[in-house]
């Protein structure tokens, strides 16, 4: 009896396969993996200490954040960032320069599926370190956190949308590797803008009015600061729903961008080393 799979079941099976192989591969590099996680813990920790110092000097609160709320913000940001970050631009730089991408092209499935599965496998595996790190920081810094029940209910969806908001844009940027082998400068410019407007240097409330307005029309806030503010209970229901609409718009734009650049890119691809 032959089972006839629907396209959706088919895709799920493919994802399960990619996920399993990625887990196995990454588990071989567990020490390197742990070391790469350190940056994701240190950056929020450093800014948390900086803002805690400022808040204490200003009598316990600054820009609407108390010391405990900064702790909640940065521990939340650390976990959300862990969920949404990608390293796809270095991956593509390597794959295209080494010619390894040729093998990917031979597979009868769009390469982005493998990239998503690989990213998720890494995230799941490393949660074993990130969660204890978050608990340890929570024990040291005593965050205060009082979300509304509806915010908790909306958070998982906002987080998934944040993941795809970032993933499609990062993936489009990774396609630059088809045109140039010097992607470092491009990436770094992108990351600096992201770090500010995603709310990693400081919660966006602490920036000047003009920066906050700009953050509304750029994609970066919706990748990180928005889900964090949502789960901290700092948004109204209208703001939360509006944010999700913004996420959906950016996901749509990101998808179009990724498709267009990918099509142009593979036409240029010359398969070095193949």
């Amino acid at each position, binding site marked *: 009896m032959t089972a006839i799979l629907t396209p959706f079941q088919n895709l799920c099976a493919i994802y399960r396969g990619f996920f399993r192989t990625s887990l196995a591969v990454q588990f071989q590099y567990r020490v390197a993996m742990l070391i790469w996680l350190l940056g994701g813990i*240190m950056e929020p920790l450093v800014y948390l200490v*900086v803002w805690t110092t400022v808040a204490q000097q200003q009598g316990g609160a*600054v820009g609407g954040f108390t010391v405990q709320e900064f702790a909640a913000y940065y521990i939340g940001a650390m976990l959300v960032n862990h969920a949404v970050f990608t390293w796809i631009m270095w991956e593509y730089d390597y794959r295209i320069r080494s010619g390894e991408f040729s093998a990917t092209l031979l597979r009868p499935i769009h390469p982005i599926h493998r990239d998503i599965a690989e990213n998720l496998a890494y995230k799941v595996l490393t949660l074993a370190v990130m969660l204890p790190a978050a608990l340890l920081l929570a024990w040291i810094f005593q965050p205060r956190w009082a979300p509304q029940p509806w915010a908790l209910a909306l958070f998982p969806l906002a987080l998934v949308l944040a993941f795809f908001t970032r993933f499609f844009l990062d993936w489009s940027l990774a396609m630059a590797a088809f045109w140039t082998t010097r992607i470092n400068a491009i990436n770094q410019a992108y990351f600096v803008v992201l770090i500010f407007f995603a709310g990693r240097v400081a919660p966006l409330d602490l920036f000047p009015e003009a920066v906050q307005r700009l953050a509304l029309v750029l994609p970066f806030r919706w990748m990180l600061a928005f889900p964090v503010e949502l789960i901290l209970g700092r948004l109204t229901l209208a703001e939360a729903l509006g944010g999700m609409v913004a996420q959906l718009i950016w996901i749509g734009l990101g998808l179009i961008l990724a498709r267009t650049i990918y099509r142009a890119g593979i036409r240029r691809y010359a398969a070095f080393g193949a």
Partner: protein
Amino acid sequence: MHYLRLFLTYLKLGLLAELEYRANFWIQLVQTAMELALALGGLAVVFRHTGDLGGWRPAELLALLGVYFLIGGLIRTMVRPSMQKFMEDIRKGTLDFTLTKPADAQVLVSIQRFELWKITDVGVGIALLAIALGRLSDSVGPLQAAMFGLTLLSGGLIVYSVWLILATFSFWFVKVENILVIFMTMYEAARWPVTIYPPWLRWILTFLIPVAFATTVPAQAVTGRMDPTTLGIAAGMAGILLVVSRAFWLYGLRFYSGASA
């Protein structure tokens, strides 16, 4: 004198190699500009909300940032490329070529490669320091300048020794390059004065991965918060680590069996 000439020769060879890739200069310039934007932007947001950070005024943090870029640039131009080459040589067995040369192998290993274009970081560091010192001119006299020079030298030697110790682990473990990532990650935390960190983190940044001596301590010297004890600890730490790293290097070398031999 002999080693100085050796250093200059290697420097010249390194520069010639890098001049082949002139376009990299512009790439590096963009990267340095981006890192500067991140650092200055961070300071700008912080000082929107406070007049000083844990007692450090804006010009003083600018001086700290200058030291951060200066030392970071030196690591990226000289220390990191040489140590990476050294670890690669152990893996491939090509360290033989260094060991058979008639000069001290530690010196040869430490000066063997330069990434010239990373010098943009050094330039930015010096410029930031000059601006900061211009604003702090009333509090910086010859004594402070001397202490600054001494602590900067100590900090540089401490950083070098730590890198040598980490790289020496390659004699036993095939792939330790990732350990160096730990250093660079911790170094980023040294962009802020370690005095603001909670005691456990300050301890890590001072003694376990001693980046505090490379940035905070020299900055303390030009901002008038240096006491003789800190100065002594910095100099003592540099001396001890130089000796320890040398001993560890010699010990590790005994485990090198080569590939061709």
